[in-house]
């Protein structure tokens, strides 16, 4: 563009000067001057053009270089600024880490301590329960050995053996009682028959007595009748003989009945003796029964004592189980503490990433705000205590609040 103006200017200037030289010196002399001027006008722009092109090239190179330099300076400045910020952040991070790391360490230490304490306590409790159960088993075994015999290993064995012995005695007793009852029943029947026989013998004796009186009267009447009564006297004599025979038979019967009666008496005595023996046997059974009852009483006493021991030990085991259940709850507390530490560390990591990306400045620099947020996020008193590095007291009892 400049060159175009230049050429327009030169052409205009050349035309004016040519006109001046032609008028002043004539055409022949002026033509040399004009020719020289034209040549000058052509050469000079060409030279200028060539020079301009060189200048342009140099200018472009310079611009490019300048751009590079600016970019380099910009980058260096940015790096310096970033390094400055980073240094500033690092300082803040160091301060924050100085505060936060001991808190995280406290929380983790607290969790670890709770875990170890709970596991130790649980182990101790289980050991104690095993001890109580061993004691209970020992008490049961010694109780059995106190009351049991050779072949009796358990209280059930003692009971079964006593039951068998008792049943045997009862069976024997029942058997003997049955025999005696039967015998007495038979004797009773025989007694009735003997009584009937005795009455019959008495009747025969009465008949014989009356027949004898009748025969005596007949003999008297026959003697008074004389010859006519001779035949009648023979009959009377026969009747007398019959009467004597009846009396004799009656006497024999009475004797036999007496004998039977005496034999029955002896048999009855034997029966009584059997009854006495049965009584003795009953006494023996009673003795066996008493012994069995004494043993059962011992078993009962032992069981009562054992029950008392087991009751006490069951209460102890129940208390131990309650304690175990309390200690098992450490997992919930530890889980919450570690969950908070985990969230806090993750948030911290995100902040570091944001610093790296140079996105945030103020938020990261305010480490006190960070610590306050940590404090607000806690759910338990022990976390707050750990935050301030205070000694944590183990919490063992639950508190209950009613809102009614």
């Amino acid at each position, binding site marked *: 563009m400049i060159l175009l103006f230049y050429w327009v200017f030169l052409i205009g200037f050349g035309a004016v000067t040519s006109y001046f030289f032609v008028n002043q010196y004539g055409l022949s002399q002026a033509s040399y001057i004009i020719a020289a001027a034209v040549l000058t006008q052509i050469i000079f722009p060409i030279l200028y053009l060539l020079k301009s092109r060189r200048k342009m090239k140099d200018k472009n190179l310079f611009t490019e270089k300048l751009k590079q330099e600016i970019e380099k300076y910009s980058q260096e400045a940015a790096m310096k600024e970033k390094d400055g910020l980073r240094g500033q952040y690092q300082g803040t991070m160091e301060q924050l880490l100085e505060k936060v790391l001991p808190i995280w360490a406290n929380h983790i230490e607290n969790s670890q301590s709770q875990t170890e304490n709970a596991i130790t306590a649980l182990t101790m409790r289980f050991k104690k329960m095993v001890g109580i159960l061993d004691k209970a088993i020992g008490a049961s075994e010694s109780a059995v050995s106190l009351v049991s015999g050779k072949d009796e290993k358990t209280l059930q064995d003692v009971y079964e053996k006593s039951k068998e012995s008792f049943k045997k005695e009862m069976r024997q007793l029942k058997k003997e009682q049955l025999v005696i009852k039967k015998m007495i029943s038979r004797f009773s029947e025989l007694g009735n028959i003997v009584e009937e026989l005795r009455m019959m013998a008495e009747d025969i004796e009465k008949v014989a007595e009356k027949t004898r009186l009748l025969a005596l009267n007949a003999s008297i009447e026959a003697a008074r009748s004389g010859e006519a009564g001779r035949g009648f006297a023979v009959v009377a004599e026969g009747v007398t003989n019959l009467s004597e025979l009846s009396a004799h038979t009656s006497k024999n019967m009475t004797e036999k009945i007496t004998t039977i009666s005496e034999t029955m008496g002896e048999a009855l005595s034997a029966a009584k003796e059997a009854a006495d023996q049965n009584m003795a046997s009953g006494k023996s059974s009673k003795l066996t029964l008493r012994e069995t009852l004494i043993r059962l009483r011992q078993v009962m006493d032992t069981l009562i004592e054992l029950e008392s021991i087991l009751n006490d030990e069951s209460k102890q085991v129940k208390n131990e189980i*309650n304690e175990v259940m309390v*200690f098992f*709850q450490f997992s*919930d*507390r530890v889980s919450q503490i570690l969950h908070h530490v985990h969230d806090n560390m993750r948030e911290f990591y995100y902040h570091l990433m944001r610093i790296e990306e140079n996105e945030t400045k103020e938020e990261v620099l305010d480490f006190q705000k960070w610590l306050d947020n940590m404090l607000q996020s806690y*759910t338990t008193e022990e976390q707050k205590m750990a935050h301030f590095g205070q000694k944590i007291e183990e919490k063992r009892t639950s508190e*209950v609040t009613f809102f009614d």
Partner: protein
Amino acid sequence: MKEKILIVDDDSTIRSLIKITLTGAGYDVYEAEDGLEALSNLRKNKFDLIMLDVNMPNLDGISCAAKVQSEADYSINQKTPIVMLTVESDDEMKQRGKRAGVRAWITKPFLPDILINVVQKFL
């Protein structure tokens, strides 16, 4: 008939311990892992008592209690007593619970006998 209790806690060990304790005391125990699962259960089934933890994922115990007490979807359980069982012992938190309709607040770790006593007070 056994009384039905819904226990809501994200910690499976705690749920097991509560279940052992209350089942042993003669109650019928149902479980939920968080507030949302509890609400799904409370929408359909009537319970005699609800036991909630405070800090749980998805929906915390106090928000769950407030929803049960105020929303029509849970009308069958609006008279059901709600008991919180939590490690939180902060008074402000307890007051939030009270405003949400909670009837009792038990702090962990709990003793089984105390838990049973509190439940027996309401059932």
